[in-house]
């Protein structure tokens, strides 16, 4: 199977006016890839550290509770919320709903706003609600 380079390609990124639905689409992919690499890595490390014993676990928590590790955890939390909300949006669209232009745009915007809001709430709860 070969791609014929003489075949015309449909005009792609260059000619379309960007809208929230396009942003959510690529964010879904980017956050998915980020979670697949960084989220999965930290999940495996966490489980292996617990399995390995208190010393290994102290190594993990030492890094995880380091203040600059927030630069890892907060984006990861946002990616998880964004991917979850845009994933739920995918389920709705999979059954054929939500394609009307106004509804599509509204819910695309809501996944972006919702993910930012839920990330803020999650971290407010972790830092001040629950205690470290």
């Amino acid at each position, binding site marked *: 199977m070969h791609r014929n380079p003489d075949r015309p390609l449909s005009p792609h990124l260059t000619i379309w006016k960007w809208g929230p639905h396009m942003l959510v689409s690529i964010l879904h992919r980017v956050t*998915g*890839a980020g979670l697949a690499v960084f989220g999965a890595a930290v999940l495996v490390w966490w*489980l292996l550290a617990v399995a390995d*014993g208190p010393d290994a676990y102290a190594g993990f928590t030492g890094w995880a509770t380091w203040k600059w590790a927030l630069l890892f955890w907060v984006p990861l939390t946002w990616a998880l919320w964004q991917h979850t909300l845009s994933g739920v949006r995918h389920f709705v669209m999979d059954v054929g709903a939500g394609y009307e232009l106004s509804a599509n745009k509204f819910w695309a915007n809501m996944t972006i706003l919702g993910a930012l809001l839920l990330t803020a709430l999650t971290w407010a709860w972790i830092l001040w609600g629950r205690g470290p």
Partner: protein
Amino acid sequence: MTMETPLARVRGLGAAGAGAHHWWHERLTAIATLLLLVWLAVSLARLPDLGHATLSDWLRGPLAAAPMLLFVVATFWHLKLGLQVIVEDYVHDEGGKLFWIVLTNFAAILAAALALFAVLRIALTGEAG
């Protein structure tokens, strides 16, 4: 004059060569991952602390170890499917595509095996809580 339908001529010519089962499994694993993620978040939030003793005691229980194993399977299965679609979309030459698909699949399965091993080690060894 061929009797072949247009559908028969294009079937299997997409970037992946197949697809419906991949698409469907991606949805199934998404639901499973989402439900188990809610379980994990609620469970961790209900623990008194996230220290080593608390976590390993908790993971020794069957109602924590079993869903955690399922969480690992669902998550890594979903992640493997998702990464493969990204490769199929962006890597256009057949050799490179095969290479990256094999690499991401192997990496996902290796990471899943490590995570499963860790959960089983916690659940099956050490003093019972």
